[in-house]
């Protein structure tokens, strides 16, 4: 299987090369995307095979100048291949349906390379190959983020994105170096043989958090994500949010759980939990304030990544505290959420892309009422929204139920400070979950419900064919994954053993359980129960109530009927994106995100409408664009003084160097 996957990576790279000429014709572009669909399917199949079969390793005949490139496929990487494959397949299918002519090469060529980079990262078995895939992934996606580089904000997004990518790469390289020690052998096997201890372990964790964490969107290095993900084409945004962040989390998990060895103290998990909780809250809150659909979804990605990070941190802490069963529980929650989030976030981004294509806007305030014009998109998106809002019995609830169970058991670690921190983290995780529900209601309700806010939204067109399939498939998957979490956990068992050294607590096939004899969650039974209840209600109502409904103008508290030139009434009398976010902006935004708002109220007798002005600053971005450039500029000013020297003074530098060196020699000789 590994060989197949390696060949696939090579084939994808070749496809990227071939895309240059193929981009000139629609058929060629379709061919490239079809190839990527197939690649996605093969990746997912490879993941399944890797989970069912045993691990495999491979040494390429070529590689960096100092040795062969090592590849391996074990349970962990196999598990992460699943979301990658699913996301890539769906996104490519979506893109395939969106091809209506020649595609700019800059949008087509990097796409297969991007996929290849992610796959290579998952398959790598030495530091160099890992970084190679990681950075190739970043570089290719950077081209895609910059595809529309005429807009200044896209250029800014691309710049920040690539700088962060380079920063993360350097941090990971340093981490590899620390792991390898003086030996300089960056093979994973060598890392496992000599796990770091004491300050080295802490430093490696910090570097990995800076490197992989920044890529995954963990606060406070998340600022690039809401900028870059929306700037890319929709199918790319879907994979960046759905799969690329997961690849980064894989790198994190690979280092922390596998390479650093099991003999690590429990507090190593604390920073992960703290950063995860912070990311979850910040992301979910921002999702409630953003007014651009894709940015909103990107922020919800930050929230979910935070939840996954909490799970990973808990697993690390439990393992350090020698509670393997609980570690498996937390790790299972994290892995399950990785898969679930990949699926429903891909779905949501694709839906946002379809809305952008159909209604020509990403701004919530220019959409509305689309459920009438784009029913397939709307209902498919509803499944994703419900999952993202953690509603039973959908996929999001299953993994977040497990995560909460793990959090509720965190006190067993025993350390008082950790217990208090964990209790706080529990509250924050619950807060983030509820905030996400609010954000999702805001997203779906404002985009698909209500009245069209612009003529273009009123005349939106939904595309069928491949695009429709690309939306329905992940929607169905979201429901299915929600119904059989137990099955998925059994599938993930080898990965859990690798991470936690134990299997997840056994529940029966259809359930997931907190612990032996602890609380359990039977999605199918719950679904059946709810369905039965609804059926009962429908039956009773049918028996008593008259059938059918009467249609009339909206009552709207008796406000006057709309004028004829506005058949649905004035769109401006609907809640706006800013207005819907107002309660949360006032409750949390003002304190956490320096949010501000003000109403421009015209004087009496003036017919201008009152306008609600609102906005916020992400403190992390402010820090990034405030002090850092200031310090850099101060240093540069000093450095420029050197540049402005005259020749005589430059010679003075040389002369000084000579004299200094001679004096040093004389001193050394003297001793």
């Amino acid at each position, binding site marked *: 299987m590994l060989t197949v996957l390696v060949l696939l990576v090579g084939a994808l790279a070749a496809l990227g090369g071939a895309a240059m000429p193929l981009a000139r014709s629609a058929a060629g572009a379709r061919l490239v995307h079809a190839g990527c669909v197939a690649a996605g399917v093969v990746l997912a199949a490879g993941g399944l095979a890797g989970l069912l079969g045993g691990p495999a390793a491979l040494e390429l005949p070529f590689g960096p100048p100092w040795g062969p490139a090592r590849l391996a496929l074990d349970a962990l990487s196999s598990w992460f291949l699943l979301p990658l494959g699913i996301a890539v397949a769906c996104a490519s299918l979506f893109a395939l349906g969106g091809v209506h002519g020649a595609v700019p090469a800059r949008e087509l060529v990097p796409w297969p390379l991007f996929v290849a980079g992610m796959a290579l990262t998952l398959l790598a078995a030495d530091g160099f190959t890992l970084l190679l895939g990681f950075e190739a992934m970043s570089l290719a996606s950077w081209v895609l983020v910059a595809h529309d580089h005429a807009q200044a904000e896209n250029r800014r997004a691309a710049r920040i994105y690539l700088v962060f990518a380079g920063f993360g790469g350097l941090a990971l390289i340093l981490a590899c170096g620390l792991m390898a020690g003086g030996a300089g052998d960056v093979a994973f096997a060598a890392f496992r043989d000599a796990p770091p201890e004491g300050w080295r372990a802490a430093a490696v964790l910090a570097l990995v958090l800076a490197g992989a964490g920044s890529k995954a969107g963990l606060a406070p290095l998340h600022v690039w994500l809401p900028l870059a993900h929306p700037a890319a084409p929709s199918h790319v945004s879907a994979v960046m949010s759905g799969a690329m962040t997961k690849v980064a989390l894989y790198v994190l998990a690979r280092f922390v759980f596998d390479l650093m060895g099991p003999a690590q103290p429990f507090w190593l998990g604390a920073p992960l939990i703290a950063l995860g909780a912070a990311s979850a809250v910040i992301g979910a809150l921002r999702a409630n304030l953003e007014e651009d659909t894709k940015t909103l979804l990107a922020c919800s990605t930050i929230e979910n990544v935070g939840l996954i990070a909490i799970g990973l941190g808990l697993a690390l802490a439990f393992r350090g505290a020698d509670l393997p069963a609980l570690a498996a529980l937390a790790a299972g929650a994290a892995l399950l959420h990785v898969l679930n989030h990949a699926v429903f976030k891909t779905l949501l981004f694709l839906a946002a892309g379809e809305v952008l294509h159909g209604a020509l806007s990403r701004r919530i305030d220019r959409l509305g009422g689309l459920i009438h014009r784009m029913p397939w998109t709307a209902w498919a998106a509803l499944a994703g929204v419900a999952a993202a809002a953690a509603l039973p019995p959908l996929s999001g609830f299953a993994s977040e139920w497990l995560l909460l169970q793990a959090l509720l058991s965190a006190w067993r670690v025993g350390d008082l400070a950790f217990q208090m921190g964990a209790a706080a983290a529990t*509250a924050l995780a619950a807060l983030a979950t509820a905030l996400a529900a609010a954000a999702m209601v805001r997203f779906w309700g404002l985009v698909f419900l209500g009245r069209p806010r612009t003529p273009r939204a009123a005349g939106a067109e939904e595309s069928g064919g491949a695009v429709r399939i690309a939306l329905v498939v992940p929607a169905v998957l979201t429901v299915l994954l929600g119904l059989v979490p137990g099955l998925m956990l059994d599938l993930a068992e080898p990965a859990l053993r690798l991470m936690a050294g134990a299997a997840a607590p056994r529940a029966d096939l259809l359930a997931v359980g907190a612990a032996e004899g602890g609380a359990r969650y039977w999605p199918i039974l719950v679904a059946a129960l709810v369905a039965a209840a609804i059926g009962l209600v429908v039956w009773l109502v049918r028996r008593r109530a008259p059938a059918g409904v009467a249609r*009339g103008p909206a009552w*709207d508290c008796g406000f006057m009927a709309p004028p004829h030139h506005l058949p649905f009434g004035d769109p401006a009398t609907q809640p706006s994106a800013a207005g819907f976010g107002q309660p949360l902006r006032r409750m949390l935004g003002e304190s956490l995100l320096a949010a501000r708002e003000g109403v421009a109220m015209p004087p009496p007798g003036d017919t201008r409408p009152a306008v609600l002005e609102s906005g916020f600053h992400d403190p992390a971005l402010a820090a990034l664009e405030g002090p850092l450039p200031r310090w850099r500029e101060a240093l540069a000013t000093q450095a420029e003084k050197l540049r402005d020297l005259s020749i005589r003074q430059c010679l003075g530098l040389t002369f000084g160097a000579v004299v200094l060196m001679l004096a040093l020699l004389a001193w050394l000789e003297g001793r």
Partner: protein
Amino acid sequence: MAAIWSVLAQLLHIALILAAAPLLTGVVRWLKARMMGRRGPHPLQPVRDLTKLLRKRPVLAENASAISRAAPYVAVGAAMAAAALVPSFARGMVFAPLADLILVAGLLAVGRVAMALAGMDVGTQFGGLGAAREMSFAAIAEPALVIAALTLAILAGTTNLDAIAGAFREGGLGLRVSLGLALVALLAVAVAENARIPVDNPATHLELTMVHEAMILEASGRHLALWDYAAMLRLTLWLALLAAVFLPFGQAPSGSAPHVWVVGLLAWVVKMGGLALALAGFESAIAKMRVFRVPEFLGAALLLGLLGAVYLFVSTGLS
């Protein structure tokens, strides 16, 4: 044998809850009226309202989508499912293994989201306003609930309601400060979830302050009946939940035969009546607070719950 009893208990429980819901609401209203010195409507008034509404054909706005028609059924269904899980007079009902506190919270969230979406469907100001407020308040209420669950889970070792009730029934836990704090947190959440005073006023339609009612302004006929019934179910559910956890006495042990249930039934009726009385007294004693003071109210509840958990760690040397 025990299996059959548990099935029977479950069915009885469901019937009981479904029947009790409108009655309980009526009783609370009646009690409030009495305390305010009015004669008040007959306790069965809600039942009459429901039957009347059911017979009317609903009027939908032109641009209303299928959401408006599906949401009330989903809301009632979710509320019924949740209510079916909360133990009332007996433990060990057939759904007991399912009865997970967090799942109940999830099912309540389903109902909430359905209502919010229904409120946004037509695209009126008040619907959106109510939805925004509802979801925002829930965002603060949810952590408070989970933190209370944390305390219960630590004491009982699980989040399964039936097991928690059992653990408290068996006692041995005694009265604890942290338990009291958790109770306060849960009460606050319950008040918010059921849109009672001081968070919301179920008896008013004053646009600027209403939360719950604003979302169903467009509903009429059977839809309105379903929305009201869902609200009644939620109230019953919450009172039953509080009763099961904090007043566990009198519950029939699991697997017990019907003749044991009688005690449990009586105890349950007494408990619910007492809680209704307390609720009525509380509501008639205080005034509704401004909308943007609600977060502070819930935030305080959250902090109390957190305090309870921390106190638990410190006091009982779990660390």
